Every structure is written in C-alpha cells, then in structure tokens.
C-alpha cells in the first residue's frame, strides 16, 4: 500500500529514533506530503509499517492539527486567530476570505482548490494579522491586500 518512495523516506526517518514506532508522526507527514491527506487505508498501511495498531495510530493522528484525516484542497489556508491577530483585525480578514472563496472556516471550495482552517499563533505578531497558504507566510494583512494574495496564488 505504501509506495517504494514513501517506504524509503520513512526508513530514513526511523534511523533518527531508538524505537521504530516513534517515527509514526514523521511517517504520517510523509504520506500526507505525497497524497494530500491521510486516508483510512493509508493510516492502516503506516500503522502496519511502523508496528502499531491502526486504532492507536488514529488516536495519535487525530490529536495533532497538522495531520489531515479528511481530504483538503490543493492549497490549505491557515489563518491565525490568536490574540495579537485578533486585536489587529483577524475578524475582518477572515470575513473577506470567506466571502472571496464562498466557504467558512473548516470548509473546502467545491473545486478542491482551497481549504480554510484556523491556526494558533504563527509567531509573527509584530506583523499581524497573518496567515499561511501551504508553506508560505503572509503578514500585515487587511481587507484590501488579502484579496490580492488569492489573485496571485
């Protein structure tokens, strides 16, 4: 079920730990990188590969917010809703994104292009409000410039 490439990347991560199963989060991240999310099938394959039950691994996978157990869009928007961004206008930026994309927090656009999720503090509070689209960070946002980002992305 796991591809040869996934297996070789997971094996490399396993070398960093004294216990094989400790690499389970790295393994989930690898599968997610290749497939976009972690399906039940993929979860079972990872569990078998690192040596734990699928039930236990699901308990771990669902604990962490960067492991997706549901399909997400090609671009995942993570908008910071913590205190500094709140003070600096998070609500307005979020509302603008929601109206631009026609989705609410936690939803994916019908074309599977964007998923909108909240995230805790991104550690860039002097340039709040901030958000990430996949691996890229955007800051100093307001109602006007946030729409620009989507036109470029």
């Amino acid at each position, binding site marked *: 079920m796991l591809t040869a490439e996934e297996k070789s990347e997971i094996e490399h991560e396993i070398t960093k730990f004294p216990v094989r199963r*400790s690499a389970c989060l790295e393994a989930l991240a690898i599968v997610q990188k290749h497939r976009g999310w972690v399906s039940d099938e993929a979860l079972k394959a990872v569990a078998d590969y690192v040596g734990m039950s699928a039930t236990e691994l699901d308990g771990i996978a669902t*604990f962490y917010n960067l492991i997706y157990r549901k399909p997400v869009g090609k671009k995942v928007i993570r908008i910071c809703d913590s205190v500094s961004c*709140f*003070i600096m206008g998070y609500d307005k930026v979020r509302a603008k994104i929601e109206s631009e994309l026609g989705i609410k927090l936690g939803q994916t656009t019908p074309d599977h292009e964007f998923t909108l999720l909240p995230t805790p*503090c991104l550690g860039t509070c002097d340039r709040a409000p901030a958000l990430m689209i996949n691996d890229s960070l955007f800051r100093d946002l307001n109602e006007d410039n946030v729409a620009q980002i989507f036109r470029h992305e």
Partner: protein
Amino acid sequence: MNKPLTEHIRSDGEAVSMEDYLKLGGYKSLSVISKMAPVDVTKLITDSGLMGRGGAGVSTGFKMSAVPMGEKAATPKYLICNADEMEPGTFKDRWLLEGNPHQLIEGMLVSAYAIEASVSYIFVRGEYKLAIQRLEKAVKEAYSKGFLGKGLEMHIHPSAGRYICGEETALMNALEGKRAIPRSKPPFPPAIGVWGKPTLINNVETLSNLPHILNNGIEWYKALSKGVNAGTKIYGVSGHVKKPGAWELPMGTTARELLEVHAGGMKDGYKFRALLPGGASTDFWLEDKLDTPMDFASTAKIGTRMGTGTMIVLDDKTCPVGMLLSLEKFFKQESCGWCTPCRDGLSWVAEILASFERGEGQEGDIAQLERHARLLGPGSTFCALAPGAASPLGTGLKYFRDEFLRHITEKRCPYADHLHR
C-alpha cells in the same frame, strides 16, 4: 549596547551562513569547553545566573545539574531544544531560528558536552517552514565541518502541531510518537525523560546564550543586565503601537521603555488600556505596573510573571471581553483533555465569554467566571496550561468588571460596531 544574540542577524532576512559565522568567531566556545570538565561547564552556567527563556524562568544551570553524571548514569542521555514556539503573542524564537541557526547548534553543543548527552533533537514548530529549512541546512553543515557527529548526533523533529507540545513532558511524548499528554512529575525529565533516559530540555533563546557565556565569562554576562537577573532578553511588543517589533535589550528593561521608546507608543487614535507582559499565559498589567523591570525576580516580587517577555497591548478600541474570549478559546482548543478542570472548565469559560459577546451575559456569569479562574489556578491541574489560562482570566475579570457589566446592561458587545465584527 551589547546584543550578543542578535548583533550578527542580517537585516536582509538571510540567515548567517556557516562561512560568516566562523569568521565572526562562531564555534569558538567549543575550544573553551574542551579545556573544562563537563561539571565545570554546568557550574559556570549556574554561576552566570542564566534563567530559562521559555517563560518559566528556572535556572538553566540548576536544570543541567539535575542530570545524573558519571559512569552509573543511564545512557544515552538526550538534549532537546524546545523550538515549539506557540505561546500567543510570542515571536522571539522565530527570529533566532531563522536568523542565526548556527548559534543555536553551538549552544546545544555546549549544553550536550556539560551533561554528556550523545543524542539531541530540535523540536520545532511545524509551521516554521523557513526555520526548519535553515536548521536542516545548518545541521548538515555542522556535520560536514565535524562539529556534529563525533560526540553528538542532532536531529530535527517538526512538530505535528498542538500548543501542549511546548510542555516538557508532553513534548517528550510527542517525540516518542504518542499523544502529547503531560506526564506526572516527579520524576522530572533530567532523571527519567524521553524513552526513559535522562533528558534536558531548553528553549531556543536559552541555548543561544551559552556560547557567549563561555566565550566572555560570567562577569561580562551579568553586566549585560540592568535588572536582577543576568544577560540580555529578547522582548517584543504587538498590538496597536506605532512600531511593533522585537528587540534584544538588557534584562530588566521596564515595560514602559518597551512600550514608549522601542515600540514608539500607541498608534494615533488609540489609548493604552492594559497589556499582557509575556504571552497569553500572563496576568494583565494596568499602567501602574509599567515601571516594573521586566525580569523574572522583579515581576515575581510584585506577584506576577514576565512569561516570554513579548507583550501584547490592549487598546481602548478593542473589547477586553472579546480579547479574553480569543485567549480562552485558544486555551480551550489546545487543552490536551487529560485532566477534568482544564478539559471541562475551559470549555465553560469560553462558552460564557462567548455569551457575553452575543449579548446574552447575565449577572451571575461574572461570579461563575471568577470561580473558574480560581479552580483552574495552580495546584488543581496536571500541568501549567490551565493556570496559564487562569492568569489573564482572573486579572481581566478584576480590571474590566465594568466592561462585563456594560455587555450585560446593553445586551450587546459595546465594541461591536468597531474593528472586529
């Protein structure tokens, strides 16, 4: 002014390269420690007065000296850098990680030598993509130059997310590939830590101090400060101020100097109302505390905490109840769910605060929130997450009581027409 941690960080946003770091005297502290016994390195760090920069402010040398030494000590021993910066309003470790990763690696080499650790991990915030990329490059370079590999292995673990991973024992569970639930203490990590072995966990800023202490000595280090605790501190200010930012300044710089000089004061049209001195888990301070030196001892003396030293400023146009709701929603969401006061209490706190914002707050709700602030305080929970949540809640209820009452009498958020709705 002396800014050992940040003086070489480039203004163009690039990281200090290995080549430049070496030219600037980088990795020089390794030759200093090579002439010292490991326990003497720990003693020097203890005597320097360095206190952990993650927020709790425990003596770094004290923590190091709790690691068992000698032939009978269990091996391998582990050193972990806690780079899981997620305290809302805190943006200091990102600066050090992105700006000067080699300084951190050198600090880890010093610490690992002192406690005789052979394996180390950098547990880094998963969202800090640029920091991860730069750390990976720097670690690779340190291996190829021979700084790493001979005595110390170093690995990077990008966190899969969750604030609770910043708690030492939850971090160890996360690193072991388990749910990040805090462990019972004692035993403390230096005795029984990750994979059951002696483990030392230190914050990025803490470790970045070590090369400078070794190179320049403890008298120099103590003289950097103008407060009670030694060294410099990376402070920051966010909110509606003229120049939000982070600066390395003498430990003990007052909150007023940070706000009025470095952050340039309030933005035009905004008035200062209160601040959280060091992240979401600290007490609100009103103007009467602004002249407090921002160091661990001075803040403890007046019954409060500095936390991470990155302040969040509340202005007169932002709803204090709304700010508390943002804070408590965060804590509710990030509770690991292990113990009842935190799991159940924070949900109720967030729900009651939300009811105020909807205009449905009632008289008895204030007393109910006060009760929760007390029950979530130190001593009733497994870890410090809920007491952290209780800090702004308890002080917020005390200082902004009139604002809560306005929400009740007006049956709406009085700030609803402004910025946030």
